[in-house]
C-alpha cells in the first residue's frame, strides 16, 4: 500500500465514519437546540424552519433568575481549584510511590484502588465536613472533588512516571537538587503530556459532576452547571429545544479547554513526526 493512498484513503474513510458516528449526533443536538418547541418535540433530523437561536439562548440563560450564570462561575472556580490541587498532590504521591519501594506500597496501592472502586458514603462525609465547618462551602466541595479524584490521577501519573528513567533523578541528586527542587524542576516538566491528560480528563469530570454538588453544596445560589441540566430536565419535560441548548451551552467551556490543550499535544506530536 503506497503511503499516499494510505494517507488519503484511510483519512477519507476515517472522516466518513466520524461524520456518521460523531458529527451527526452533534449536529442533531445543535439543530434541536435552535428549533422552536413544537419542532424540537419531534426529535427528528430536519433543518429548522424557524430559527430560534437567540430566543432559546436567552430563555436558557435567564431561567430561574440567571441560575446558569451563577452556575458557570461556581463550576469554573470549582474546576480550576480542584484540578490544580489534584495535579500537584497526585503527581507527588505517584512519584514517591513509583520510585521508593517499601512494604507500605502494597497498602498504599490497595487504598488507592479502593478509592476507584468504592462509591463514596455521602452522609458520613457530610458529618466530617460539618465538623470541619466546610459543609455547604465551595472550599469543602473542592476538597471533596480532590479526595474522590486522587485515586484516578495517581494511577495515571504512576503509569507514566514508570517510563521516566531513574537515572535522571540520580543525576539531579548529584547536582545537589533537594527533593522539592528535583520534583518540581526536573520531574514535573517531564510529566507534561500526562499532566495535560489529567487536566483534561479531571476538568471534564469535575465540571460535569452533579452527584457531589447535589449533596455537598445544596441550594440554588450554589448551583453548578450540571445541576441546571438536572433541573431543566424535569422542568422542561416538553422543551427539548431548551434542554439541548442547555446541554450545548454547558459543553462549551470544556470544549474550549480541550481545544487549547489539544493544540499543545498536537504540536508536540507533529514535531516528533516531522523527524521521521
Amino acid at each position, binding site marked *: 500500500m503506497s503511503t499516499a493512498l494510505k494517507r488519503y484513503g484511510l483519512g477519507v474513510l476515517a472522516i466518513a465514519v466520524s461524520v456518521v458516528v460523531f458529527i451527526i449526533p*452533534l449536529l442533531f443536538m445543535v439543530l434541536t437546540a435552535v428549533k422552536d418547541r413544537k419542532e424540537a418535540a419531534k426529535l427528528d433530523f430536519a433543518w429548522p424552519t424557524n430559527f430560534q437561536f437567540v430566543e432559546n439562548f436567552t430563555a436558557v440563560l435567564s431561567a430561574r433568575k440567571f441560575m446558569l450564570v451563577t452556575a458557570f462561575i461556581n463550576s469554573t472556580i470549582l474546576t480550576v481549584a480542584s484540578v490544580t490541587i489534584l495535579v500537584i498532590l497526585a503527581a*507527588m504521591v505517584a512519584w514517591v510511590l513509583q520510585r*521508593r519501594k517499601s512494604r507500605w506500597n502494597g497498602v498504599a496501592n490497595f487504598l488507592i484502588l479502593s478509592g476507584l472502586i468504592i462509591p463514596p458514603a455521602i452522609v458520613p*462525609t457530610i458529618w*466530617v465536613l460539618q465538623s470541619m465547618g466546610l459543609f455547604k462551602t465551595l472550599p469543602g466541595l473542592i476538597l471533596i472533588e480532590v479526595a474522590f479524584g486522587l485515586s484516578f490521577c495517581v494511577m495515571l501519573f504512576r503509569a*507514566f512516571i514508570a517510563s521516566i528513567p531513574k537515572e535522571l533523578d540520580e543525576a539531579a541528586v548529584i547536582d545537589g537538587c533537594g527533593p522539592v527542587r528535583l520534583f518540581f524542576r526536573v520531574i514535573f516538566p517531564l510529566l507534561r503530556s500526562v499532566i495535560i491528560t489529567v487536566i483534561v480528563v479531571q476538568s471534564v469530570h469535575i465540571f460535569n459532576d452533579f452527584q457531589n454538588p447535589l449533596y455537598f453544596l445544596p441550594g440554588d445560589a450554589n448551583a453548578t452547571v*450540571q445541576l441546571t441540566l438536572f433541573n431543566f*430536565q424535569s422542568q422542561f419535560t416538553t422543551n427539548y429545544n431548551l434542554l439541548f441548548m442547555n446541554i450545548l451551552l454547558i459543553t462549551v467551556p470544556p*470544549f474550549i479547554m480541550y481545544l487549547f490543550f489539544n493544540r499543545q499535544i498536537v504540536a508536540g506530536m507533529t514535531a516528533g513526526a516531522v523527524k521521521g
Partner: protein
Amino acid sequence: MTLNTAPTPTAVRPVPQAAHPKRRKGKSPYPYWFYLPAAVIYTALFLVPTVVSFFFSLTRWNLSEFTFIGLDNFVQLFQEPALIKGLTNTFIYGLVTSVLKVVLGMLLAVLLTSQIIARGYLRSVMFFPVLLSSIGVGIVFTALMDPRNGMINEGLAAIGIQGPAWLTDPAWALISVALVDVWKGVGLATVIYIAGIVSIPQEYFEAAKMDGASSFKSFFNITLPLARPATATVIILSLIGGLRSFDLIWAMTKGGPGFTSDVIASVIYKQYQAGFYGLSTAGNVVLFVIVTAIILPLSMFLNRKEVEQ
C-alpha cells in the same frame, strides 16, 4: 514550545552512566512527606467516611438512628431478585465496554498518530463525547434511539434494515447502553494510547522501517509491547468504570425495562433511593469485594509484565 512531551532516550543521554549517586544518609530523594497533603485529604474525606459507612452495613439505618442486625443485610441482599441479574449484567457490561475501548482506542490511536489527513479534526471530533456529561449523553441518545421516531432507526430503515427497540427491548437494552458508553469513552482511551505511543522513541520505528518491516509488523512488535503501560491503564480504568458503571445506565434506562438492564451499582442505588441505607452500604461492600477480586490480580499481572519489560 518544547518538543519532548515525553522522555526519549535523547533526554537520558547526558546522564553519565558510570556515576553512582552518593546518598546522603537518611535523606531519600523521595521523601514520605510528599504523601502527607494528599493523605490527609484522602483519609478525612474518603477513608474515614467509608469505614464508618461499612459499620452501618451491619445495621438497619435510616440516617438518624440505627439498629444492629449483624449480617442480615447481606442475607437480604443475596435474596434480592435483581441482584443475580445485576451481577451477570455487570460482567457483560464491564467486558463489552472495556474490550471495545481497548481495541478501538488502540486502533484509533495508531491511526491518529500516523500521517493521515485531517488528523486534528479527527482527534477533536472523537474526543468531543468525552466532554459531554452522562446526563446530556443520556438525553441525546434516548432521543436518537427511540424505536419509532429515533434517528438511528430512521437511518437504518433508509437502507432497508429494521432496527431493534434499542432501549426498550429487554434483549438489547444493556448492550445499547454499553455501546453508548463506548461512544462516550473511546476518546479518552484513545488519548491515553496516543500519549503512550508518542512516548515510544521514534528511533525504533525508523530502525524497523530500515529493516523493511511492514506497518503491521511494527505495530505488533513495537507499538503493542511498548504501549503496555497505556494498555494497562486503559484496561484497568475502563474495567473499573464498566464494573461500577452507573451514570449512563441510570440516565438511559434506570435499569429497565423492568430489571433487565440492572447492574450491581443500580441495584445498590435503588436501595439507597428507597431509604434502605444499611442495605445499600452492604451492597457497596459486596461491590467492593467483587471488583477488588477482579481488579487486584489483574492489576498485579499487568504491572508485573510492565516491570519485566
